[in-house]
């Protein structure tokens, strides 16, 4: 794989052949019948580079492994195999001070602003706790920093002494962002950050994220199912299917001319705002196969309209196609490259 030599700058994060398997807890009847534990293959050999200060969008159907990938990167899961390098250093098996340093520099932000904040702590307590645990500031500087952070996420100073329930969903999401920023991270992992918010409030949070990123030079992993939003905020986008990247490339190129048949179907299924684009037949039939039984060959072959004999046996590798990379034997022929 010579991906590294193609990239102009050194990646901030470099993920190679990353796999994550969960063993499913056995039901009583399975145990009695002596059936073996089932293995969920949530990630199956993910290869991905994340460049400094870029926003990388991650899209794919529910259950395809987006959150698992995000959690592995944020250090919340220990992957089953493969490697994650951060500024060139492997972060797998980091311990002690170096683990804490990594955990500070890569911050995860969650979808649910209601459950990720402690309801009994004021905003000030929440931020103070984060700041002191990592010794970001000491003494009186902590309070000054709290007001700086509130200002950064456009909350009034008066917000400091309020509790989470006193805020709207969009405001709570900003508190979550302030908490992540209090640790002065290099990389933010945003898993469905705005999905729970109303459209009218989503835009406020997205604008804030874009502005902070430009001002602070943050790297952002943006996981979301709203493709229009992902297209808008991302420099590059990765499409994931059954735990593997099937296509990655510059956002505008990928959205205007997807190369992989799965990306093509996913984009076609997203409802267009133009009533003239109506289709009678669905863009993609069938469902995501169970991650308990990943199909052999190309994992997409059971749903792919272009599947040929070779696809049933030989797994396509992620390789350069157009301006990005795609994992399909026939990507050039299919996308007219």
């Amino acid at each position: 794989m010579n991906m590294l030599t193609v990239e102009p700058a050194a990646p901030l994060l470099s993920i190679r052949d990353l796999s994550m398997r969960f063993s499913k807890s056995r039901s009583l009847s399975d145990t009695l019948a002596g059936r073996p534990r089932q293995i969920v293959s949530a990630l199956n050999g993910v290869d991905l580079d994340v460049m400094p200060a870029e926003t990388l969008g991650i899209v794919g159907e529910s259950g395809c492994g987006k959150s698992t990938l995000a959690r592995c990167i944020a250090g919340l899961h220990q992957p089953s195999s493969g490697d994650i390098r951060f500024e060139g250093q492997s972060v797998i098996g980091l311990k002690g001070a170096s683990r804490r340093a990594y955990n500070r520099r890569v911050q995860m932000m969650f979808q649910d602003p209601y459950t990720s904040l402690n309801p009994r702590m004021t905003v000030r307590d929440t931020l103070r706790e984060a700041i002191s645990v990592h010794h970001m500031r000491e003494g009186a500087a902590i309070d000054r920093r709290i007001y700086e952070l509130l200002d950064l996420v456009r909350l009034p100073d008066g917000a400091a002494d309020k509790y989470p329930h006193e805020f709207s969903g969009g405001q709570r999401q900003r508190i979550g962002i302030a908490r992540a920023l209090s640790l002065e991270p290099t990389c933010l992992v945003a898993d469905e950050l705005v999905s729970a918010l109303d459209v009218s409030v989503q835009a406020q949070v997205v604008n804030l994220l874009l502005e902070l990123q430009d001002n602070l030079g943050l790297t952002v992993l943006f996981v979301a199912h709203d493709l229009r939003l992902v297209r808008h905020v991302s420099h590059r986008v990765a499409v994931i299917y059954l735990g593997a990247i099937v296509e990655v490339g510059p956002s505008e190129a990928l959205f205007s001319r997807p190369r992989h048949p799965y990306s093509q179907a996913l984009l076609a299924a997203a409802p267009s705002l133009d009533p003239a684009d109506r289709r009678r037949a669905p863009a993609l039939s069938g469902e995501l196969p169970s991650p308990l039984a990943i199909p052999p060959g190309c994992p997409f072959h059971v749903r792919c309209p272009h599947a040929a004999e070779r696809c049933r046996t030989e797994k396509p590798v992620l390789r350069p196609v157009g301006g990005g990379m795609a994992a399909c034997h026939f990507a050039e022929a299919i996308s007219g490259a």
Partner: protein
Amino acid sequence: MVNDKPETVLELRHLRTEFGSREYPLVAVDDISFEVNAGEILGLVGESGSGKSITLRSILGIVRPRGRVAGEILWKGRDLAALDEAALRKVRGREIAMIFQEPMSSLNPLLTVGLQISENLVAHTGLDAKARRARATELLDMVGIPGARDRLGDYPHEFSGGMRQRVMIAIALASNPQLLLADEPTTALDVTIQDQILRLIQSLSRDLGMAVILVTHDMGVVAQTCDRVAVMYGGRLCEVGTTSQVIADARHPYALGLLRSIPRDVAPRTPLYSIPGAPPALNALPPGCAFSARCPVAGPECLDLRPPFETVGQFHKVACHHRFEALAHFNQQEAAQ
């Protein structure tokens, strides 16, 4: 739109649903009037808490606990609001069926899917056991569940989220309803499965003449599925029109702002339009226009004077005191971008 006037099956006249004490009621649905024709899909959009679900529940007479409904709900000329519970039960689930917003909680986890469909057939049709089985298979088949016959004995947890949602639709369709109330039937689903389900609802409405009220947050879903759309804000209707009228030529400041905040035809990573502020609390609404606190063109009278519904085109109605200013304001914004 068809030329000869289609049959109006449902007509709401001044629907009002309130909760809480009579002195200080919380008005969730405030003076809503619209009609739905046979074979038509009407979209109902609006922010979280704007009263979409309560509107649907009021139609079916299920706004318990403690909801009070006033106004007329004319179902084929008969006022449902005036019926008692026993009479309503004959209509509910038979002539009018509902798909609820939380599909997982509305399937019984202890009963097989076949039995749950069958229960509905017992309640609403005269079919015998054998015919019920055949009809249940046919229904699962129709909603695109592969191997339908073999899956009647499966429990809900053995289906994926998308399949459970389709089972809910199968149950709702069991009695051949003439009106389907679909409350965000696809919000929790992937775009690919959403696309499949919307195409299904569309073909049922087209082929069987079933009327549909489809509640959604997503303007793309409206564009791809609905014939007409009604926009709600703070329990009130602010704009009604054909899908293309509202999407391409909205007039109400809230509808204009909502559409503007969706990223389309804007340069990547530029700030999105966002409606300032947050949705209002229902008990803090002004007597005048519900949107006045966030409206960019509000005048002094907007707080106290309720804007009347005015016709702005065939099928197109808007409730706003300043619709020309609104149009000018948003056109200016567009020019500035």
